[in-house]
């Protein structure tokens, strides 16, 4: 098609470079002015612009592979530069960058201290229940015969599966499909115990990523591995010594198992009821439900062997997680090498795991809960947590500890201390018995108000209630405060809304909006939407599809018609486009009539294009999730995709000082102040299209 004629040849290279975005603004302006006056050059510039757009479109925003690679690079660089740091931390200490943690939520979750601590706590509780099962009434005396093998087991192996029944807040940043996948898959952990002092746990996440933890109590060492990335973290006695006692054991679950097995009799506050018999996997099992202060467990055992067969558990701290224990094997041979705490050959050793918070098993009290409130409020800038369970408390830590913050000296230790404070308060509240009539009313309340009760309970054997107020003072009261919508403790978390999106989350979701612009431009002759109004966008896309559908297969709407269509607001506008576009002369009448009968705000029309416009919907979802203080604006009306130096959308992520500005060429920059573009539309906006 149309090669340039001789006088225009000097423009050829500049046209290419303009399309590729490789000219200075002055040069670019000159080229475009020429292209407006020269049909051949104009046509070539359009072709090249489309070509360059297609080339750019093949490169997606940072994906998981790339993110993981870059994170490894940065970890290695951090390690490398720290070697030269005067008085540095030593070559084996590598700061986790967390640069891309929002792109790989699972890895973050797996490393999250509270998650790790909770898993261990649940393990602790579950083992307690196993032990108790052999002592409660209703279980046939024959079971006692089977205590001995467990007590004497030299090796124990089992599997734990954790499945979420509700989307945890930290997953909300993930696309819906991935959330569903995570819900369905859960996390499976293979646990191997050798003797009383060696444990190996292999966890596989929903994305098939693997994490291995090995603990050797004899050497006082633990080793954590990320096999996919060949990274290892070695911890020594100094950092784990507080975990050595059975009650505080976060690693030595075998020791806990045995200790509790011996001492579980006559524990107060434990309720057991028979579940009768049933078949699991073709095996007849008998069950008992054990209700502990912190958990409910259904324990199913094989009466023939007297050994536990399956245990289903939920805990107060994580009411939305269902744990299933199965595949118990006793005294199976295990390779010693599986419990080696020497980093495998080829692994990079560093601090790739955030240390778990310390919970020493000591008693918690009201002061711990007050400290939890104080700490959360400090992190949030005032508000108290939405709920008093794991989910309500953890999101704030993830939000506050951004990439930059984790780079600061002492950040890891700070995270550990924060998690410990949050954990202790939560532990206190979840351990309160039902009779304490504990309630939480802090959701939506901020630190300060001396007359606003946020938590109350009745201590054991006390007649009066203890009430904690929003100024964190504690007083006694004869009756519980009357606060509407107070949540009984333990509570089910309402989670966080996406309005809590921090910078990392925004940057991830921002890609959806960029995709919206790209996809819309691709369909509408490089035009950008006149507004970010969903009904309007959907109607325009529906009209475009309707017109294309009316055309013979070899005919297409011209870019000029598509750009006019982007601006169209009524049937009259469409009629004009149809009459002006030569290709529409061959249009089929029926589809055209149907298309024209669709109203701009027709739900049917909208529904019809939603499936095809999935990327558009995702971009709009991002916009709708932005809080009002994001100061988001759209200025893409009348702007062509690819225009250089033209801001079309900007907003300020929660907690960020700078604005993020998307340009018409779909580049993104940061700015101290919003761009000064006239007539920018505040976002989100109300539908403006009229039929």
């Amino acid at each position: 098609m149309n090669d340039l004629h001789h006088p225009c040849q000097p423009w050829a290279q500049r046209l290419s470079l303009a399309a590729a975005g490789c000219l200075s603004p002055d040069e670019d302006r000159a080229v475009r002015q020429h292209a407006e006056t020269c049909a051949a050059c104009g046509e070539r510039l359009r072709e090249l612009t489309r070509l360059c757009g297609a080339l750019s479109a093949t490169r997606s925003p940072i994906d998981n592979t790339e993110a993981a690679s870059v994170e490894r690079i940065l970890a290695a660089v951090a390690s490398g530069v720290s070697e030269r740091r005067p008085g540095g931390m030593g070559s084996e200490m590598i700061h986790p960058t967390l640069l891309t943690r929002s792109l790989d939520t699972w890895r973050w979750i797996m490393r999250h201290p509270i998650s790790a601590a909770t898993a261990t706590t649940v393990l602790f509780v579950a083992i307690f229940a196993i032990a108790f099962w052999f002592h409660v009434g209703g279980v046939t005396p024959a079971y006692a015969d089977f205590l001995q093998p467990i007590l004497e087991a030299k090796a124990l192996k089992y599997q734990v599966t954790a499945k979420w029944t509700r989307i945890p807040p930290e997953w909300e940043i993930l696309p819906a499909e991935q959330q569903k996948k995570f819900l369905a898959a859960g996390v499976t952990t293979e646990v191997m115990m050798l003797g009383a002092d060696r444990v190996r746990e292999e966890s596989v996440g929903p994305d098939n990523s693997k994490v291995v933890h090995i603990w050797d109590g004899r050497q006082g060492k633990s080793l954590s591995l990320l096999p996919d990335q060949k990274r290892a973290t070695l911890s020594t006695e100094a950092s784990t010594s507080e975990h050595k006692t059975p009650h505080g054991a976060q690693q030595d679950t075998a020791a806990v198992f045995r200790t509790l097995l011996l001492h579980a009799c006559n524990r107060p506050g434990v309720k057991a009821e028979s579940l009768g018999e049933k078949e699991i996997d073709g095996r007849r099992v008998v069950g008992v439900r054990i209700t502990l202060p912190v958990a409910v467990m259904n324990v199913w055992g094989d009466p023939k062997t007297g050994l536990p067969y399956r245990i289903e558990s939920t805990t107060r701290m994580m009411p939305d997680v269902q744990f299933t224990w199965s595949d118990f094997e006793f005294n199976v041979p295990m390779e010693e090498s599986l419990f080696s705490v020497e980093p495998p050959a080829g692994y990079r050793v560093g601090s790739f795991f955030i240390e778990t918070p310390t919970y020493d098993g000591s008693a918690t009290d009201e002061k711990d809960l007050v400290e939890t409130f104080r700490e959360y409020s400090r992190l949030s800038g005032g508000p108290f947590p939405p709920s008093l369970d794991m989910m309500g408390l953890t999101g704030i830590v993830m939000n506050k500890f951004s990439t930059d913050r984790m780079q600061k000296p002492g950040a890891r230790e700070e995270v550990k201390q924060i998690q410990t404070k949050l954990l202790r308060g939560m532990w206190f509240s979840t351990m309160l018995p039902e009779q304490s009539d504990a309630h939480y009313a802090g959701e939506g309340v901020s630190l300060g108000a001396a007359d606003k009760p946020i938590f109350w309970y009745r201590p054991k054997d006390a007649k009066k209630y203890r009430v904690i107020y929003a100024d964190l003072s504690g007083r006694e009261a004869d009756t519980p405060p009357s606060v509407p919508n107070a949540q009984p403790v333990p509570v089910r978390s309402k989670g966080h809304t996406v309005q809590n999106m921090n910078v990392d989350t925004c940057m991830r979701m921002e890609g959806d909006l960029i995709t919206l612009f790209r996809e819309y431009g691709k369909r509408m002759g490089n035009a950008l939407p006149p507004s970010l109004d969903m009904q309007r966008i959907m109607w325009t896309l529906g009209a475009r599809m309707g017109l294309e559908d009316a055309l013979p297969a070899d005919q297409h709407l011209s870019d000029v018609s598509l750009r006019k269509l982007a601006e169209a607001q009524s049937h009259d506008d469409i009629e004009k486009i149809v009459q002006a576009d030569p290709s529409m002369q061959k249009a089929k009448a029926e589809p055209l009539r149907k298309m024209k009968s669709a109203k701009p705000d027709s739900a049917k029309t909208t529904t019809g294009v939603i499936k095809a416009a999935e990327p558009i919907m995702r971009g709009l979802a991002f916009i709708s999730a932005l809080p009002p203080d994001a100061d988001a604006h759209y200025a893409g009306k009348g702007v062509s995709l690819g225009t250089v130096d033209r801001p079309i959308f900007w907003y300020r992520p929660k907690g960020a000082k700078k604005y993020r500005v998307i340009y018409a060429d779909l580049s993104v920059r940061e700015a101290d102040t919003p761009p000064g573009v006239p007539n920018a539309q505040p976002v989100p906006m109300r539908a403006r299209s009229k039929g």
Partner: protein
Amino acid sequence: VKGIRKKKTLGSEPFGPNWGITSIVDTPDVDQHVLIDRARTGEAAAFERLAQQHAVRLWRCALALGRDPGWAEDLTQETLLEAWRSLARFDGRCQFSTWLHGILRHRFLKGRRRRNTARLSTADGLKRVPAAGLAPERVAQDAEDAQRVRQAVANLPEDHRVVVELRFFAGASLDEIAAAAGCPPGTVKSRLHHALEKLRQMNFSVNLFTSSRESRERPS
């Protein structure tokens, strides 16, 4: 535009914004200069921050050069560590990113000699994991479109392929491409022009850059 800190666009780096760079935030020069000065005094955290700013683009450039994700990771890591060790030699006569790309090229040439391996065929090294969470149909369509384009780019002569991949897949500026490809900026311009012309001509014959998705989309 009021309030926007822009990169220098004239003089030694006559560029507009990169095409389609969606995830790389342009670094305000003033911040970068401060970081470089601090890093020169031995402040590791400042250099780590610089590394964060440049790692993604360097990795993509390394991928365009080496066509092997694993090697790209090594190259990027080596480049940044060498930059840290050699920071005293950075004289500010070119952009810091251009200097990094020069180191990258050096490491690439050194590594290529050592590897002594044949180049990967077509676009194997550039196969990418689709962005998380996309619908399967969307992933398939995107993959189909992208593969068609990548295949066309892979069929270009080596010199042309490299500049196109550096520009569009890696988001490199003209000077960065020149540093990474080891040729003057004028040559980069010429190669880029000829490469785009070839692709444009290809498009006429096989309708290369019209998305297959569009033809499938019709209202239900």
